């Protein structure tokens, strides 16, 4: 049984306009996304800015209410829970944020930050709170004396470690990391990634890793979902990402990524145009405006996300990608 089951999740943000400030349209940030995350697995969510990956992350842990669809965590439907009922799940699902400079309350020291969360959820007995704080701080690689310092007294990398400590001190089972290393320099990025890997193994965490950088996702995650304009266009394992990728957008993403080897210099695959505006997405497949292999069928119908070839769990949403089964009719395809 998967730890997390997301079925046909939608998240729409109303757009106001007109004289009476009525709702005149909707931005479909997350548009019918379904996926599973098994215990101990790290699933990557990758996509360019505006593809809805952050919104998906926040909706899964109920920071944002889902407009439609179901989110099952530990076999419990989250979308229908009240604030109180949600409390135990709040503790089990935690989040790590992107910007080291705005993810920590400037007025709280590290100790106060952690103690507040621990005492609220009564993670440990009142007397062991300090001990628990010390152990967490030591685990994320911070010096013990940094307990009583303010956030502005730390570097970017150290602040991310504090963010991780805040998430882990509640002993969660599931962690959503929203671009945890994007704001860091490469060397510090490596250190934080290593730390997250160690913690995953030690605590047996299940993680959802959101990033725009394919290299980092390929390195860190087991499986990856590629998103474009609110839709999941491809889902595959990271073992041999370059070879396995089938969806034109995924291959374009891989091709556009400059690799750090001058001898491998090759012309980057160039996708023309820009991501269309989410206010009026193009009909049918959202990628039609930029897809090199677009056909007229793509304009009419949204291709379903379905198994495309032998490897299990490898799904793509594109008419041009030959399906593993018979020529995929519209009706077939998973949920």
């Amino acid at each position, binding site marked *: 049984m998967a730890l997390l089951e997301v079925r046909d999740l939608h998240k729409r943000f109303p757009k106001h306009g007109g004289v009476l400030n009525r709702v005149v349209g909707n931005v479909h940030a997350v548009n019918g996304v379904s996926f599973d995350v098994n215990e101990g697995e790290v699933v990557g969510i990758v996509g360019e800015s505006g593809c809805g990956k952050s919104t998906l992350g926040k909706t899964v842990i109920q920071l944002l209410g889902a407009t439609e669809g179901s989110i099952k965590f530990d076999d419990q439907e989250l979308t229908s829970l009240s*604030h109180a009922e*949600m409390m135990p799940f709040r503790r089990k699902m935690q989040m790590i*944020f992107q910007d080291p400079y705005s*993810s920590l*309350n400037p007025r709280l020291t590290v100790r106060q930050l952690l103690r*507040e*969360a621990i005492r609220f959820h009564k993670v440990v007995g009142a007397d062991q709170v300090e001990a628990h704080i010390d152990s967490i701080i030591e685990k994320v690689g911070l010096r013990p004396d940094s307990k009583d310092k*303010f956030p*502005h007294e730390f570097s970017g990398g150290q602040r991310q470690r504090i963010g991780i400590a805040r998430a882990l001190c509640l002993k969660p089972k599931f962690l959503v990391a929203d671009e945890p290393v994007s704001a860091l320099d490469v060397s510090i990025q490596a250190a934080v990634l290593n730390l997250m890997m160690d913690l995953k193994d030690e605590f047996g965490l299940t993680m959802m890793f959101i990033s725009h950088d394919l290299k980092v996702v390929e390195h860190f995650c087991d499986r990856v979902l590629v998103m474009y304009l609110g839709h999941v266009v491809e889902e595959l394992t990271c073992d041999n990402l370059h070879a396995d990728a089938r969806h034109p957008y995924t291959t374009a993403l891989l091709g556009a990524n400059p690799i750090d080897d001058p001898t491998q210099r090759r012309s980057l695959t160039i996708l023309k145009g820009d991501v269309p505006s989410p206010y009026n997405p193009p009909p049918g497949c959202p990628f039609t405006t930029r897809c090199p292999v677009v056909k007229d069928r793509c304009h009419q119908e949204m291709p379903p996300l379905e198994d495309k070839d032998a490897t299990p769990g490898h799904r793509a949403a594109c008419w041009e990608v030959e399906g593993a089964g018979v020529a995929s009719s519209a009706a077939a395809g998973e949920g």
Partner: protein
Amino acid sequence: MMLKRFLRSRGMRKLRRNRMAMVASAVIGLYALVALFALFGGVSLDDTKRRVWRENTPGFLQPMSKEIADYTLDWHADKWLRPKMEAARRASDERSRQFSFDTAALGQRTLADLPGDELIALWDEAAGIYDEWRELQDTADEANEELEFFRIDLDAERAKDAPDQDMIEELEGEIEYYEGQLEQAARAPELAADLRAKLLELHPVPTGVPGMVYRAKLWFGTDSKGASIIIKGLYATKIAFQIGFVTAVGAVLIGTLLGAAAGFFGRFVDEAVMWIVSTLSSIPYLVLLAVLVVMFRGSIFDNEARPALALVPLYAAFGMTFWVGTCRVIRGEVMKIKELEYVQAATAIGFARPYIVLRHVVPNTVHLMFINFSLLFIAAIKGEVILSFLGLGVKGQPSWGIMIAHSKDQVSSGFFWEILTATALMFGLVLAFNILSDALQDAFDPKHVS
């Protein structure tokens, strides 16, 4: 606890490095001390009303011209001491006589502590000298006047082509007579000196500490009722601090609470708060104040007898209008903070929204509260001046506004001491707060540019 954290925050360290800000806070501290000193009995309300010398005497720098010296002497003897001493002479019993003697005191400068009769004897001598001096003065004045006329006539007569001789002789005779009168009057200054010595004997200037206090009271001169301007200034500092502090604290608190609620909870709360804010801020500030004062007219708050209560309409007026600015600023900041990731993290942990507002959002607007506090403090002080001028502000006790308003006519007669004292005291405090609020904004508001 929150304050300790706030004091160790980055902003405060940057603030401490700003020398100007430290000087400004020292000045404010000094003013606060004066206010506290005045508050705890140092300067009482009737201190500000007690007469210390004659009206509108200039302060320490201005040299006494001869006319002013004579006028002061005349006032001291004839207008001040005479009625008291005559009353003492007529007094039936010892108690009322002593009472008359006491009324002659000018602040710390009491009559010489001699037995009653000797005082009266001294006064008789002084009165004698005074009368003689007065008479000489009058004759001298009259002589000067007459001489002037006659000289003009004489010149006119001489200038004629057929001057009338006996007319000339007559005029010359008159001139001679009045010049004789003037010589007699030459003794006047000498008499004045004797009178002054006698009066000093009768009404000595105190020595030692009371002497210093008495002279200090005269530093900045006296107002239209003879009361010491510096004492009024100090008392007014207390009033200014009182008004500034109460208004600023009240306005900042209301503004922050409503602003935070509107900013964080949005939609209906936001609509309601912003409706009130727009309504209050679209009536000109003074019109609203005038309307409020009409509301309080005739109520217990509207009489001179109880000055403390007379401040309530002022507080109500400021209270209704000042919080609007703070509310807008805090609302903007809270709406910004609400989107920041550490608030989302707090929500993710599961804290209730009100807890998040109080623990995570509001503490991060503390710097704005301080900035607004100092801005509103200034606005309250300057507002009080305008209100007192319009008769809507402080009643029954001196304040900077009252002093400036009363000194309006004195200025046209060239007496600046009262208005300059009030303006200078106010200038010091308001300037200090201006500098402090600027420094606060630099230290805390990343965007602000000095």
